């Protein structure tokens, strides 16, 4: 049913116009509240007029009731609308006042500035690869005995192969012996075989020392040793392990290798191993080309070494290899100068170093 609006008496129209004007000019929410109380509060102008309804005749009331209620409803709506506007305006002002210059650089997060040394990264890569092949990680001290560094490894006293090691010695001890800085990680082989029964599958990364210093040699460097001893391990397995390692480490599809017969006192037969490469002005690219690059020494563990560790060479057999960690790091990541590894130049470390959370894994890829 459509009810025609009741025309307002003049005084009510004036009242409404006055209140509306006040609402529209209220500057903020507090002022608006004052207007609301003045109009709709218990003693407000509209409320006072509502109170007069009781004294009216039913006819008058039928006219004035809806008129007054309509007036109240309209003012209530106007106040709500005005409030919404005022809130929005206030927020706009606040936001404008809170503006900052976002082109300023933030403080870089620590994690962005920190770096892992390439040697540590490569050691973690080695661990990831060999852990997957069932190897565990063995270690030994840097200060070794002559027995473990040489004699048990089948380097007889006075043997010319000892001369080739440029050994650092410590002072003579009370018992006439002298300790030395291990010249290779191979004493860890011996320590492992003395402590553990076959089957053995270890790698032993660590620091090694030789008193030699030039473009390509530093008196301290890093090696990783590998050792497998069981009842069947032979050169074919050695080839497989090294091929798998090179493919995984250098991240190449094809790691063609060349085994050259060589000599190490602690292996027999012994091989030096070359990896296929291409040499150009840009450096060395591995896994392609028709040149060769020597990367490691290897062989079947010498029966004398097994015997020296209490292992029967007719029952057990196995192979070992050793390679330079610094060297394979240089090859993989293209660092030209070994000496820079140990100079701790922050510019170099930031250039060649790795992100703190860039922990290599086979699942996630070794290098990213």
């Amino acid at each position, binding site marked *: 049913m459509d009810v025609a609006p009741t025309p307002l008496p003049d005084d009510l129209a004036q009242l409404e116009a006055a209140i509306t004007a006040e609402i529209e000019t209220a500057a903020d929410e507090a002022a608006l509240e004052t207007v609301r109380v003045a109009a709709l509060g218990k003693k407000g102008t509209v409320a006072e007029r509502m109170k007069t309804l009781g004294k009216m005749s039913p006819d008058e009331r039928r006219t004035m009731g809806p008129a007054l209620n309509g007036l109240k409803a309209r003012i209530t709506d106007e106040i709500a609308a005005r409030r919404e506007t005022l809130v929005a305006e206030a927020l706009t002002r606040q936001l404008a006042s809170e503006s900052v210059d976002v082109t300023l650089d933030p403080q870089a997060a620590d994690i962005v500035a920190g770096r892992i040394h390439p040697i540590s990264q490569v050691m973690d890569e080695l661990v990831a690869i060999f852990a997957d092949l069932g190897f565990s990680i063995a270690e030994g001290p840097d200060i070794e005995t002559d027995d473990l560094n040489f004699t048990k490894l089948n380097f007889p006293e*006075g043997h010319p192969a000892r001369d080739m090691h440029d050994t650092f*010695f410590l002072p003579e001890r009370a018992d006439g012996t002298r300790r030395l800085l291990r010249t290779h990680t191979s004493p860890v082989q011996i320590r492992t075989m003395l402590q553990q029964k076959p089957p053995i599958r270890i790698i032993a990364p660590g620091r090694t020392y030789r008193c030699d*210093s030039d473009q390509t040699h530093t008196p301290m460097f890093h090696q990783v040793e590998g050792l497998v001893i069981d009842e069947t391990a*032979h*050169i074919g397995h050695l080839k497989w392990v090294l091929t798998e390692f090179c493919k995984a480490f250098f991240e190449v599809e094809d790691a063609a290798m060349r085994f050259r017969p060589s000599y190490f006192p602690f292996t027999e037969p012994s091989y030096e191993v070359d990896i296929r490469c291409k040499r150009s002005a840009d450096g060395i690219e591995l896994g392609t080309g028709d040149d060769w690059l020597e990367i490691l020494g290897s062989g079947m563990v010498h029966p004398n070494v097994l015997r020296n560790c209490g292992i029967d060479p007719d029952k057990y057999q196995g192979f070992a290899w050793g390679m330079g960690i610094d060297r394979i790091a240089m090859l993989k990541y293209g660092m030209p100068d070994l000496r820079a590894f*140990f100079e701790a130049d*922050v510019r170099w*470390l930031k250039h060649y170093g790795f992100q703190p959370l860039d922990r290599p894994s086979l699942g996630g890829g070794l290098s990213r």
Partner: protein
Amino acid sequence: MKFTLSWLKDHLATEASIDEITERLTAIGLEVEGIEDPAAALAPFRIARVTSAIQHPNADRLRVLTVDPGDGTALQVVCGAPNAREGLVGVFAAPGTHIPGTGVDLSVGSIRGVESHGMMLSEREMGLSEDHDGIVDLPQDAPVGTPYVEWARIDDPVIEIGLTPNRADCLGVRGIARDLAAAGLGTLKPLADPAVPHSDDVATPTVTLDVPDDALCPAFALCLIEGVENGPSPDWLKKRLKAIGLRPINRLVDVTNYLTYDLDRPLHVFDADSVTGSLTVRMAKDGETIEALDGRTYTLDPSVVVIGDDKGVESLAGVMGGEASGSTDATTRVLVESALWDPYNIARTGRALGLNSDARHRFERGIDPAFTVPGLEAAVRMILDLCGGTAGPITLAGAVPDGTRTIAFPPSEIKRLSGLDVAEDTAEAVLVKLGFTVDRSTSPWSVTTPTWRADVEGKADLVEEVVRIVGIDDVAPTPMDRPGAVAPRVLTTLQNRVSTTRRALAARGMVEAVTWSFVSHEDATAFGGGSAAIALANPIAEALSDMRPSLLPGLVRAVTRNVNRGHPDVALFEVGQVFAGDEPDDQTTSASGVRQGKNRPNAVGRHWSHPGAAADVFDAKADLLAALTAIGGPADKAEVTRDAPGHYHPGRSGTLRLGPKILGHFGELHPALLTAMDAPERLVAFELTLETVPEPRRKATKKPAFSASDLMPVRRDFAFLVADETDARAITRAAKGARKDLITDVTVFDVYRGQGVPEGQKSVAVEVTLQPAERTLTDEDIDAVSSAVVAAVTKATGATLRG
């Protein structure tokens, strides 16, 4: 070891190309390190005649030559050689050519005002020898205008191989030829008939072996040749010696050098007329001296074996002869020696005297004993051929050892070690070609080594011989089984900690350094080390003399270098080994770091967002605790005490302890130490010893059930006045202990000295968190706890509650 292709072919009948030969050499373990074609560098030089030689107008020692290079021109050349003269036929280098001996590219130049269009060359300038006494003086009939290499037949490629110490037999060309023949690259030619006419008219020399151990000189053979005529060697011999880098001296000496390389038989010749009395092999007397053929005088001790006569020492056995009895052009009577020496004694003598020689190199690796007398015969024959004369009978003192070894060899060993199937006939054939004797009538086989292969000791060596000749390339890569389905844990706790600590510290903005394991003695001493037991006996440099007691000296030096290069605000760390002594247990693993300048966690350098303050002791402490926490260490249980080693600032450093164990230290480094090290001031540092952090107990992977209280925690603040030197830790510990069932945390949120706080005191404000377990706390409950806290802190520290 160097040799030429033609030399090899003296021993090896082969049609193989040089490429095939060098490839095969590498494949069988005689690694080719270089192939030199000497003709290439000398190709531009032609034979030329000096048509006139006049004195240089401005220099006494120079002459101005007119040179005919054979093309009809006459070139003016300034020359300083004393033998430059009219009519000389020599070798001419035109402008624009490269002089190999000097590395200079020749151009037309003016020498003391006279133009020179090229030069006449000496042998050294051509890189042929060290001879620089004058320019090359060729025979008059040498064809002018012909390339020198063509006339001199310098067309023989020189091959250099790197030999492993076990392959002493390949220190002679014949040994190399034998290996190649076994590898199927030709046939080994028989040795020339060694039969030598010996005349009884010439005396049989006597020699006495007077050494304490027969092994020092098992055998010594000697032959006297009379009526020899010494002098320069024939060209073919000089050429071969020069090709491998030896200097021809005279026929007698050249014969010994030649046979050293040809047949791997070091020899020595004495001028018999310079020997007084007869020769004796004996130990040197202490302080005895000899002037050796290298012109140096050596002082000997009784560990050195010498060959002496009635005058004194004439030769260092197996290493080098003496100048006094060396052969000269005037020598007519010569004693030729072929002997055996103890490899270890020769090596020790050579090392002690710092004397290297071709003889030492061979004797210390082992020489074919059976070739002692045949080698002497070969030398005598060659001397008779080149110098004439008459040889007397050979004297042999001592006895030539057998030098063979018989090895029980099951052929199955080849497959066992190499994985390669080799037919037994093939294996036998390879061994026989290498000189082994194989008896297949026994099981296992009985294999006897040749006298020149002392390195072959057992079954594994025989496998190596067969496999290297058959070809290691034939061994197929064979996958290995994985032990067990799931890989076991591969890293020890310590190994995990090393890797984790590195990444935790790098994540705090520090950069990982790897510094030397050795530091200077001063640095070692300053950082708590310097023990003589771990000072290197032969350090490579003074700054790298002692095993490091701490990572800090290396890091401080590294920080200093970076700052001095103009890159300040550095934070470096290292995780690595430190040494307290020379036993394995004395080596521990330290994680240490140094912060310099404005390098604080999350606040590096000058930045608009923060004041850019310098790193302080609390940054170092935070680094230490972060490292400890990262490896699961008990950071909450560890106690800090106000003491630290002497390299720290005594008032700004601490030690982190767990019960009686010291986990690490932190603090500012001692200012006096930094000054002494020329380091930047105010460095802060920490050291954590990873081994002292307790191993986590093995526990189930399941954690206790999660339970969280529904009740709101209550927080109350207290401010205590305490004496300035009171440890804040004492307050928090006492507060926490006041009601262990309710108080879960106590945190210092303010430390204040100044107005309102009496002199000598500080105000320490703490927030205490109460976590009710069963019911909401009433005001009375909270008041009771507050009183307990105040009482406990007061009792422990003498504090008063600040009003």
